[in-house]
């Protein structure tokens, strides 16, 4: 997505004659900030994606051939770090920034300047982490989980990783507070909490998680830095520190983080399915209840990442882990019931939303094996887990994110994305995704540990790794189709109507793209589907006249 293609014509002409660049750099308009979030996120997605392709090339053959082991260790560390902290979470926040105020009928976010600050901290934090590559000893190379004490052996790159994540954490925290205040205080008349779009509920739940979890992580990062550079011994066992304290702190944040990475994608899918099924979301209140239960329960399951340490209360954490799959199951039932007896239109947003359901189901179900400690002893830290996290975060969140782009792109830029290219994109991504990540289940069952740059030819892992590498390049092709579709859209004149999909929520009641002040006329909100109410009223007027 190119900044240069977005003409300032989208902005109300003001008295200022500042250049468009300065306009974008100093903007406090939630829509522009949302677009900046998306551009920044996809830029980091590109970097993280290139890292992934390099890893797949290295693993396509046994031995260590293409790159040095140290470089491999840096790359898998930064792939995880960038994808989680600088792509998935910010890209969802980008949608949140653009659409939460529109969906609740607000003028802007509650704190527009803080909103700009939360955005600009992101590239700063991301580049801080990446700058480790130009230091002596290189970037952080201990995995995105950065377990102590091995990570205390790192150099400057390790400190830059810590510092960068502190900055990103502040950004997320400010953003979350902004969302909570906006959603609670800025809703249009008639927009009660049980009429706000389900995506807004998802952003609210995400923000609650962020406000509760990120401070814990921040304090952990500060302790880590102090251990590394100031000689404290919170974690360092050589001087009486507790190694497992880091794991407890990290995962107490890290598991809610997983839900922060997917709740908003659930929200997007829960917006799209009703629109393209011609039905309301089945069990709106049930979905909200499930979101809130998951938010609460996600703080009780962290130690399931630590079963193999032999230092956690297994029956308790295994029980909470099994329990959290119950509200997740409820979500599935509601999605299926939404489609049931609907009138389905297979537009690209719908295809990706359906792909989300089909793939996230696999990612949810394969988690059931690792929820049982005895099976987890065999599978944890193997490629099974790599497969599981990618079925959740790629098969789940990424399909949801792409669905969101196809769904909301007309509203954001006033241009439709090409339907045919979108369908091609979907099928190539679906096949490439499964070819990349399904074989990893089998590699995990065959005992291939994660985070290894090297494996011997006699382990029987070569063929499955090759399948996975081929799949990764198919994903790359699908992303090129996606990029082409977006770039080509900007070469065409604006062609998107206000409401191209026959949708339900308020963002479709204004122009595409919306004016700076969002709404010329705010329609009355009398249900959770105000735009549908408008459509029906208009049809009724036409019928009677």
């Amino acid at each position, binding site marked *: 997505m190119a900044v240069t293609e977005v003409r300032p014509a989208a902005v109300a002409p003001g008295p200022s004659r500042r250049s468009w660049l300065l306009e974008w750099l100093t903007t406090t308009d939630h829509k522009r900030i949302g677009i900046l979030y998306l551009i920044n996120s996809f830029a980091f997605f590109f970097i993280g994606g290139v890292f992934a392709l390099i890893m797949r090339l290295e693993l396509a053959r046994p031995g260590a051939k293409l790159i040095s082991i140290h470089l491999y260790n840096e790359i898998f560390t930064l792939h995880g770090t960038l994808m989680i902290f600088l792509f998935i979470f910010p890209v969802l926040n980008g949608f949140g920034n653009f659409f939460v105020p529109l969906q609740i009928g607000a003028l802007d976010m509650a704190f527009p300047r803080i909103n700009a600050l939360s955005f600009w901290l992101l590239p700063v934090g991301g580049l801080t982490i990446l700058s480790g590559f130009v230091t002596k000893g290189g970037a952080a190379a201990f995995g995105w989980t950065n*377990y102590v004490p091995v990570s205390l052996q790192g150099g400057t790159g390790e400190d830059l990783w810590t510092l960068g994540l502190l900055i990103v954490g502040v950004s997320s925290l400010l953003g979350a507070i902004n969302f909570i205040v906006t959603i609670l205080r800025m809703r249009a008349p008639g927009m009660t909490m049980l009429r706000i779009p389900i995506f807004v509920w998802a952003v609210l739940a995400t923000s609650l998680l962020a406000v509760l979890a990120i401070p814990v992580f921040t304090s952990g990062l500060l302790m880590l830095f102090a251990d590394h550079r100031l000689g404290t011994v919170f974690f360092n066992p050589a001087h009486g520190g507790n190694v497992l304290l880091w794991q407890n702190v990290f995962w107490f944040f890290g598991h809610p983080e997983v839900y922060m990475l997917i709740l908003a994608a659930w929200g997007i899918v829960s917006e799209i399915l009703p629109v393209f099924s011609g039905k*309301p979301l089945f069990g*709106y209140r049930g979905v909200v209840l499930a979101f809130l239960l998951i938010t609460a329960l996600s703080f009780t399951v962290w130690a399931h990442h630590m079963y193999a340490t032999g230092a956690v209360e297994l029956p308790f954490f295994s029980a909470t882990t099994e329990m959290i799959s119950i*509200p997740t199951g*409820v979500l599935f039932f509601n999605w299926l019931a939404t489609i049931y007896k609907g009138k389905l*239109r*297979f537009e690209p947003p719908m295809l990706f939303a359906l792909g989300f359901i089909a793939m996230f189901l696999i990612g949810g*179900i394969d988690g059931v094996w690792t929820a049982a400690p*005895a*099976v987890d002893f065999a599978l944890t830290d193997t490629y099974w887990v790599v497969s599981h996290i990618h079925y959740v975060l790629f098969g789940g969140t990424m399909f949801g994110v792409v669905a969101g782009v196809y769904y909301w792109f007309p509203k954001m830029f006033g241009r439709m994305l090409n339907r045919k290219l979108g369908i091609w994109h979907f099928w190539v991504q679906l096949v490439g995704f499964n070819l990349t990540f399904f074989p990893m289940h089998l590699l995990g069952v065959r005992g291939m540990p994660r985070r290894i740059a090297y494996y011997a030819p006699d382990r029987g892992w070569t063929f499955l790794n090759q399948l996975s590498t081929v799949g990764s390049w198919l994903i790359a092709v699908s992303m090129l189709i996606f990029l082409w579709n977006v770039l080509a859209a900007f070469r065409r004149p604006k062609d998107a109507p206000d409401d191209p999909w026959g949708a339900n929520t308020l963002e479709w009641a204004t122009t595409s793209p919306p004016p700076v002040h969002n709404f010329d006329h705010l329609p009355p909100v009398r249900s959770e589907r105000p735009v549908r109410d408008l459509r029906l009223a208009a049809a009724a007027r036409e019928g009677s006249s």
Partner: protein
Amino acid sequence: MAGWARRRLLLTAPFLILLSGCAAVPATQQGGDVHSLYRTIFLLAAPVVVIVEGFLLWMLWRYRRHTDEEPPQSFGTKRALVIFFLIPTVIVGVDYGFGEATLASVDRIDPNPQVVIRAEGFQWEWTFYYLNEGFFTTGKTLTQPAQMEIPVDEPVKILLHSRDVIHSFFVPSFLFKRDVIPGRTNQFTFTATRLGVYKGQCAEFCGLYHSRMTFYVHVVTASDYSAWVRRARNAALHVTCPSLGTHVRVTAKNTQWNTNCIAVAANQQIALSVSNQDPAIDHNFAVYDSSKRTKEFFQTGRFPGVATKDFAISPLPPGRYYFQCDVHGPAMSGVYVVTP
């Protein structure tokens, strides 16, 4: 659109078949329990996947757009919500019961193990101490993986110890791993049920050569095991080498000494030169009475490479002693022979 649905089915079906058939064949009694739990969960999970994905595909075909009429606007009922909660609760409850039963059997510590091994991990090698037999085996980082030998059908107890960072003791065929954590001793017991050689590997990222921290477990018959114990003990006792007189130079490189035997003259001061060729890794050189280290005769300070330092060892009476690097332990050790 029917073709669409069919293609989707073709994509998922082989996956499910693969998933059921590919678990490693377990080589221990505990691994067998884990394997049957794996299958039990499969029997619970596979129908869920098939039913949900199948229902989804059927709906996509059945409810594709036919008409312009608006479909029934169903908002959901309380009864549906209760059912939606109940179904996963029942499945998960059953699953939890099976899981806990297996966990109890896998985590049970056998009170009378036949063999007790202290497995020690460090960057990036393993050392296995046979606590009752009084010797150890180890490997050479990057070149020769450590070998563990155990008798079949006998309970074996493993005590896990780390010299530096977190590692994880993982043998895929045992369907088991347990983290090796500095400052904490984890333990578990298992009984191997099949003869063979099984590959093991560190499963917790532990730095640069994590991927090379492999080992082998040989499961042999009881008589082969006792013969191996005898051989291993004798080999440790009978290493010899020619005397170097009073000047000794040892080199540490890739976390190995250049020799496993140093012979020197008796009752004379020895000029020792220790060369550490491992950048940023600490080593030292120490002489003890035996690998049990009940008496220490000489010890240098630790220092990182690349560096060479000179020391003097006080005169010792003739006999067989033991040397090691205290940072890396028996994996960097040998016999120190003082010849008359």
